[in-house]
């Protein structure tokens, strides 16, 4: 909030300026400022309208021209992203993107942020984040089949971060579990930079028969516009504007946080899919951010039509709501649909069967205007086009912060060698104890992962694998993004997020198809943050082009800053891929004793921006590892060819914590319990011990294979130009992890590794067990 955040919030929430005051209030310069419109935006508004706005119109413009809805800063940058490809059925601009998974099936997917609501009210903030993204997917005609959460919190040493983690995990779990959509993966990273501004991004993946795809369109003059689902209440008014402001010390804007009802969502999901299946609708859209206003105007804009709403006919939860409140309410579990001619009654019957309401609240018109009537009086009359597409955009000059440059260029030589074998062992255990690396079991044990009977591989691996409808195919999905990398090198960091996601999919045997992204950044009005944004978006585009994973949608969450400063720039990349036969899915864990362990890719002398530096030395510095996009693409092709030839028993991406952590994780997740592993990495004399053990060089994967398949594996690696080295063997059940590299020899009992890895989160969270929300 620019200044006087509390005043801002209260003025906007009440919407009617209190019961005692006259509605509508006079539109004064102060009121305009409270609505977050600057001088230029005010001028554009007057130009669009040709007169001064009413109070309700001011609210409508304020919401639609917020960053959250209008993408003021990101729109010009996003224009350069690749969005097309033969696999893309629906690109950006709809409720969710859709890619082709084969056999007549599309995969709808989208990621969205719910950062600010979750900072204020973690349980409801996260729960409604899940609800919103589920609706984005089922409005496309797709049944949601999986949820993924990408979370950032401050250090778990802080009670507030523990409270936030606890509430967010309960919120995600309770909502998804109740609706019956499994939560199958994600990422959770802890860093003090997110202490007051946690990130809660949620991705939903859904399946639809391709011919059932439906869009958010308001076609057909005279067609009925209907509100279906929950009634409209006073909650969440102006959430979109709230999401586009900074959080200040006093941010306790609970009335702007919506309350979710997963039971109603489940009914709305089934009812919506039935409406679509029976072909009763022309278009459908979630009443999400900016509620009725954005859904009605965006649907009209897509179709080049207008919409007229009779505000008295909107079912409300309480009497006396003003047009302003009804137009901007973000009450959850509501949809706006346009019925096919003559099918209104059938729409009502379907909703009734699911014990929900459907009310005709308006009509599609041909005049390109968004008109709202209140008791016969016109209270809003705005041309749709400038409202939806005329949002002023900003292109600024980004300048890298000197502090970031200094950090990136810092001398890392004091950290190149842990010191002794013993200290190297301690360093590995310390990294495995880092909540950002350790087992996430404490989290995903609270998520239903088996509902819908599609889960081929759930959380804990490189990517989740989900059976595609009733076919033999499977869809794999993952979310990746390393804020520390992006902070220290925005362009490369963003490229790495895409490359890592593709590598994760390839590890399980899935061919990447496309991405959705959530851009979590600070206030873009500052030159340093703008630089991060501009560079990161460029990096995303480059990587998506190289890996043939077009962008199908996403959202931007800017203004993630507190008085302590901005968060790390944190793009979350959600990627989906497909495999022909679910039986060919490759697990992360070793199979059994005697299998060969291989390392694909090249280890370079890189420790910058690593988890090792952060966890063991408290240092955030150095450049993130180098990335050659062509090499990344070859590695993906190699993995898919090797998996397709059934030569791979297990595969695991080398990422946070490097080779040592990847080996430990594959050994821990062996299918019959932890196995020992013995590896010697030779030929790396030019490597420092820290880089050989814990460096995060990109495009590397730990594989295991039957010894008989070694020659075949090597041949495929050669064909793809991927370096491949046999580095050791899987040992006995129980056993020890033995790893020799760059002159350091690690030898740790797997039991100790497991205890550290599994206890890291529960140990820090156990005193939270009684916390209720």
């Amino acid at each position, binding site marked *: 909030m620019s200044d006087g955040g509390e005043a801002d919030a209260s003025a906007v929430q009440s919407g009617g300026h209190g019961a005692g005051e006259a509605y509508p209030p006079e539109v004064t310069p102060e009121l305009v400022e409270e609505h977050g419109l600057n001088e230029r935006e005010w001028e554009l508004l007057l130009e669009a309208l040709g007169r001064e706005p009413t109070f309700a119109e001011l609210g409508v413009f304020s919401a639609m021209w917020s960053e959250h809805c209008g993408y003021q800063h990101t729109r010009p940058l996003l224009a350069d992203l690749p969005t097309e490809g033969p696999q893309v059925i629906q690109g950006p601009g709809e409720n969710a993107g859709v890619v082709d998974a084969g056999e007549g099936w599309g995969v709808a997917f989208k990621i969205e942020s719910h950062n600010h609501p979750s900072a204020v009210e973690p349980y409801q903030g996260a729960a409604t984040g899940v609800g919103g993204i589920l609706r984005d997917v089922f409005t496309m005609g797709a049944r949601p089949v999986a949820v993924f959460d990408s979370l950032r919190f401050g250090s778990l040493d802080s009670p507030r971060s523990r409270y936030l983690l606890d509430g967010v995990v309960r919120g995600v779990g309770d909502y998804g*579990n109740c609706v*019956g959509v499994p939560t199958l993966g994600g990422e959770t990273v802890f860093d003090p930079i997110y202490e007051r501004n946690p990130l809660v991004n949620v991705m939903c993946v859904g399946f639809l028969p391709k011919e059932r795809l439906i869009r958010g369109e308001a076609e057909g003059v005279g067609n009925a516009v209907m509100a279906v689902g929950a009634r409209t209440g006073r909650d969440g008014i102006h959430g979109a504007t709230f999401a586009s402001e900074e959080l200040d010390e006093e941010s306790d804007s609970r009335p702007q946080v919506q309350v979710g009802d997963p*039971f109603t969502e489940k*009914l709305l999901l089934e009812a919506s899919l039935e409406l679509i299946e029976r072909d009763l609708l022309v278009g459908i859209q979630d009443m999400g951010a900016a509620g009725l206003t954005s859904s009605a105007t965006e649907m009209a804009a897509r179709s080049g039509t207008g919409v007229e709403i009779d505000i008295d006919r909107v079912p409300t939860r309480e009497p006396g709501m003003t047009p302003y409140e009804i137009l901007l309410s973000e009450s959850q579990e509501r949809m706006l649909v346009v019925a096919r001619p003559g099918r209104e009654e059938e729409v009502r019957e379907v909703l009734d069967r699911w014990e929900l309401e459907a009310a005709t609240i308006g009509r599609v018109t041909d005049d390109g205007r968004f008109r709202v009537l209140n008791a016969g009086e016109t209270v809003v009359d705005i041309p749709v086009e400038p409202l939806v597409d005329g949002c002023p955009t900003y292109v600024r000059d980004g300048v890298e912060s000197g502090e970031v440059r200094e950090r990136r260029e810092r001398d890392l030589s004091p950290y190149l060698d842990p010191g002794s074998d013993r200290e190297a062992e301690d360093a590995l255990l310390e990294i495995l104890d880092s909540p950002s690396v350790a087992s996430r079991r404490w989290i995903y044990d609270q998520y239903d*992962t*088996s*509902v*819908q*009977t599609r889960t081929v591989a759930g959380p804990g691996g490189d990517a989740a694998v989900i059976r595609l409808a009733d076919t033999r195919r499977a869809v794999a999905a993952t979310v990746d993004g390393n804020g520390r990398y992006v902070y220290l090198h925005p362009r490369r960091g963003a490229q790495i997020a895409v490359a890592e996601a593709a590598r994760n999919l390839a590890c399980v045997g899935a061919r990447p198809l496309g991405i959705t992204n959530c851009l979590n950044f600070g206030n873009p009005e500052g030159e340093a943050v703008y630089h991060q944004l501009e560079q990161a978006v460029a990096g995303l585009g480059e990587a998506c082009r190289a890996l043939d994973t077009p962008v199908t949608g996403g959202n931007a969450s800017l203004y993630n800053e507190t008085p302590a400063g901005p968060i790390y720039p944190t793009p979350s990349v959600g990627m989906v891929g497909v495999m022909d036969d679910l039986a060919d899915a490759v697990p992360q864990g070793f199979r059994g004793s005697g299998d060969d362990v291989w390392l694909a890719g090249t280890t370079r002398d890189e420790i910058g921006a690593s988890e090792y530096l952060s966890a063991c030395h408290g240092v955030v510095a150095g450049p993130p590892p180098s990335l050659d996009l062509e090499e990344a693409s070859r590695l993906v092709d190699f993995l898919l060819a090797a998996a397709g030839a059934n030569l791979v028993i297990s595969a695991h991406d080398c990422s946070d914590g490097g080779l040592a952590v990847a080996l430990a994780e594959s050994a821990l997740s062996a299918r019959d319990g932890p196995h020992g592993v013995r590896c010697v990495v030779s030929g790396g004399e030019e490597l420092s011990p820290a880089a050989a053990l814990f460096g995060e060089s990109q495009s590397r994967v730990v594989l295991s294979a039957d010894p008989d398949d070694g020659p075949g594996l090597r041949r495929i690696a050669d064909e793809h130009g991927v370096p491949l080295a046999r580095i050791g063997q899987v040992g006995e059940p129980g056993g020890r992890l033995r790893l020799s590299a760059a002159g350091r020899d690690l030898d740790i009992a797997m039991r100790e590794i497991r205890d550290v890895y599994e206890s890291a989160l529960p140990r820090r969270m156990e005193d939270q067990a009684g916390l209720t929300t």
Partner: protein
Amino acid sequence: MKFGIVRFPGSNSDLDCHRAVTEGLGARAEYLWHREHDLQGADVILLPGGFSYGDYLRAGAIARFSPIMREVVDFAERGGPVLGICNGFQVLCEARLLPGALARNEGLRFQSRHVHVRVETAETPFTSAYGEGEILRLPIANGEGRYVADETTLDRIEGEDRVVIRYVDEDGGRSDEANPNGSARDIAGVCSAERNVVGVMPHPERASLPYLGSTDGLGFLESVLTRTAGAA
């Protein structure tokens, strides 16, 4: 042979039951809407998991008043086989077709993972395909899965061999660690005095196809198929 799968508003494992019956078992399945008064000739009734009516009062508490449940109670009283899974188990307890109740998990958190259970009796229509003492690996996914009953009831159902499955470790041993939610006497499933109504907290239907990592649950459905086929 037809399975009737009851759908309450908020049921979410109905699809899982359908898939297990049709694809896992190769039998027919029909959904039965909660407002209906007719079981449509189903030979077996499944009450699936989920959050019937949102579970807002108490898990399963509202569902028992639905029209379809009147039919299910009649069906059960005539000796028809009824299996309640997770929320379905809660509904059966609320409907007094099964003794005891399901309370909030010890630890107060939703629990989702695979557990091991031991088949304690093969003398029910849903466990006759198993050997007594057989260890199964099944998923659980619940927030209110802690089986509770007074001591007299517990003694009675144990005395009548009505504990159907019990939480154990992978070797079949009982321990606090193997009991995921603090259920009384490690009870994961029970049956009615006439043995035709069975309620289980774990999800056998989600362990019914090879790609799900376990097919141990298929026996629940195979049991009733064999039995009904034999009777016919």
